[in-house]
């Protein structure tokens, strides 16, 4: 590196630093979610996700705080109560048995004074810690897929994973312990994902098809009031979604459409149309006129031209639009909340419910959240260009 380039490099350090810091700030929250979703429950309670790679054992801190001063760092400071001995620890299978010793008297002294008892969760962690220290139990894995499996089947009870509980207790209540049966039950996230697709796919293509026909007429057919029609249709973009919820909710109640997929498809179609017409019209209107001329001279009718020429050529615009609309519907909570709700919970709805109930702990909630954002992220990274384009053109969408 010669001197000049070195000076350049040094001069650019603040710039690079600023960008890297900003990018880190933007990335960290999502990264935290991602990492947490793969950590076992104990690890999540034990340490922050940024410590995921540091070696920790459940209950280390708790042991130090509550037991360490008497039993010692190596568990064997008291000869009559060597906590590193597997024979001794094996007597304590459940944490309740361990906490039973706290009020006992040893040599005339209360084992642990009442106000210094660890709580139930801490005692459980300490027992795990001792079982691992004495070699009765393996340390838990650092990362696991169990959270994903739990949420996919909608298992949210405390303590133990779906697999563990099924192995230990078998089916009970609504839990059949058959993966596919459980995963398609109403509150299972896999079911939510299926519902999300059922909502999203038609709600993406319906408006595009309707808009395609309308846009073709608006750009290549001759009739009175064409401009006014275009302005009116596209102008409806102004209307915010909130503005129509009340009447449509009432209309759906009368028609029995509340809680049906059809109702949601049509609603999204209505709200996707103005922007779709605008975008496709702009694109199709710019196609060269000779194209149409020669096709008409060859005797093609409008429908043939539409199908054979316009649709294939408008594909880039349609792709951008499809991606935009897909993400919009997939990520929507408001419409799903009001018109589907509990009847067919989609992913976003399930997530909002999980937040309210704290959905069986952070390890599972992060997994559920990641499932819901995985699809948009995949689409985003696969079709970044189309996506950005659709979004820029759509910056005026309602």
């Amino acid at each position: 590196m010669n001197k000049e380039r070195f000076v350049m490099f040094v001069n650019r350090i603040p710039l690079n630093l600023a960008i890297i810091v900003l990018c880190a700030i933007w990335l960290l929250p999502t990264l935290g979610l991602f990492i947490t979703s793969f950590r076992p429950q104990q690890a999540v309670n034990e340490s922050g996700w940024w410590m995921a790679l540091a070696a920790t054992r459940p209950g280390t801190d708790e042991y130090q705080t509550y037991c360490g001063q008497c039993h010692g760092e190596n568990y064997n400071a008291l000869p009559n109560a060597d906590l590193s001995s597997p024979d001794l620890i094996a007597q304590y299978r459940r944490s309740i048995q361990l906490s039973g010793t706290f009020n006992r008297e040893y040599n005339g002294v209360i084992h642990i004074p009442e106000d210094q008892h660890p709580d139930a969760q801490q005692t459980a962690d300490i027992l795990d810690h001792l079982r691992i220290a004495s070699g009765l139990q393996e340390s838990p894995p650092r990362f696991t897929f169990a959270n994903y499996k739990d949420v996919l089947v909608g298992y949210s009870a405390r303590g133990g994973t779906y697999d563990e509980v099924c192995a230990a207790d078998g089916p009970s209540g609504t839990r059949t312990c058959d993966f596919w049966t459980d995963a398609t039950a109403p509150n299972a996230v896999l079911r939510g994902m299926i519902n999300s697709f059922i909502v999203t796919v038609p709600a993406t293509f319906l408006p595009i098809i309707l808009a395609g026909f309308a846009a073709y007429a608006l750009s290549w057919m001759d009739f009175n009031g064409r401009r006014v029609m275009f302005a009116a249709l596209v102008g409806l973009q102004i209307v915010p979604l909130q503005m129509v919820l009340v009447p449509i909710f009432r209309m759906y109640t009368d028609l029995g459409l509340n809680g049906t997929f059809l109702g949601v498809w049509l609603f999204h179609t209505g709200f996707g149309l103005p922007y779709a017409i605008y975008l496709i019209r702009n694109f199709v209107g710019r196609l060269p006129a000779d194209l149409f001329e020669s096709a008409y001279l060859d005797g093609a009718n409008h429908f043939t031209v539409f199908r054979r020429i316009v649709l294939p050529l408008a594909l880039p615009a349609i792709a951008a639009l499809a991606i935009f609309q897909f993400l919009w519907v997939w990520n929507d909570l408001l419409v799903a909340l009001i018109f589907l709700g509990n009847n067919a919970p989609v992913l976003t709805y399930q997530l909002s419910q999980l937040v309210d109930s704290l959905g069986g702990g952070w390890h599972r909630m992060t997994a559920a959240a990641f499932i819901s954002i995985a699809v948009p992220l995949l689409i985003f990274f696969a079709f970044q260009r189309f996506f950005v384009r659709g979004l820029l053109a759509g910056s005026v969408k309602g």
Partner: protein
Amino acid sequence: MRTLMVMRQGRWTPWLYMAPAIIVLVIYVAYPAIRTGLYSFQNNDGTASAAVRCAADQPCWGFLENYRQAFAGQQGQIALRNTAIWLLVMVPGTALFGLLLAVLTDRVRYEALAKAIIFMPMAISFVGAAIIWRFVYNPDPGIGILNALVTALGGESRAWLATDPPGNTLLLTVIGIWIWTGFTMTLLAAALKSIPMEIIEAARVDGANELQLFFRIMLPLLAPTIAVVMTTMTINTLKMFDIVWVMKGIQTDVIATRMVSELYLDRNNGLASAYAIILIVLIIPVTVYNIRRFGVEEAEK
């Protein structure tokens, strides 16, 4: 609209092509929008004027009673105040960060990567984003990274989302900025790229330093785009629903969430409609300005 009519079509053909779109739009957008306007002057089931909702020995605005309750009611005032806070923070916030990032990333080779990272939250649902940030704000310094940082720096960990209003709303706007900056950055970066290199080179040759370059040359040229960005963000912010809904805190309601609560939880159609109308009355002027601008730019191309 330039078109070349080389083929005759029947009188009804264009309407046939447009009919499905028109029917859906009328049923789902045009007609209900008008209905909402009417509902906002009526009682909850639309059977009588809103005046019947007036309570005795209380102020009453007759058929405008829903609006009085929206403006004078405690819930309504909180929603209006919070919407104002959102606007005041989000609009300049996203514009500033977007501008900063557009200008900075323009100068490095890993521009595409940096932009993808900043833009990524746009792809995520607001609900997903809300969960991500609940996690960041978690009161336990062993779970929430914000408290972990605060305690590492010697501070006290706090239950951030339980901050007294309006502090909690400010914390929510951070999420909004995190999401929307990718959008403003992309718009501004596109505008930045369209500034001819010669202008910038010429200024450099004349001895302008980078700061002067930015304030004297780039900023004036970017001004129209900044205006579009800010108006668009105003609309987006006014419609903001999901984040606030999912992060529900003490007195964090904005107009959009207040409206849905009235509709969905309390079945208060009239009041909900009044909120909807307030929202659109705020949105329309901004949209009209925006579309005009858009039209001007299209014409200039």
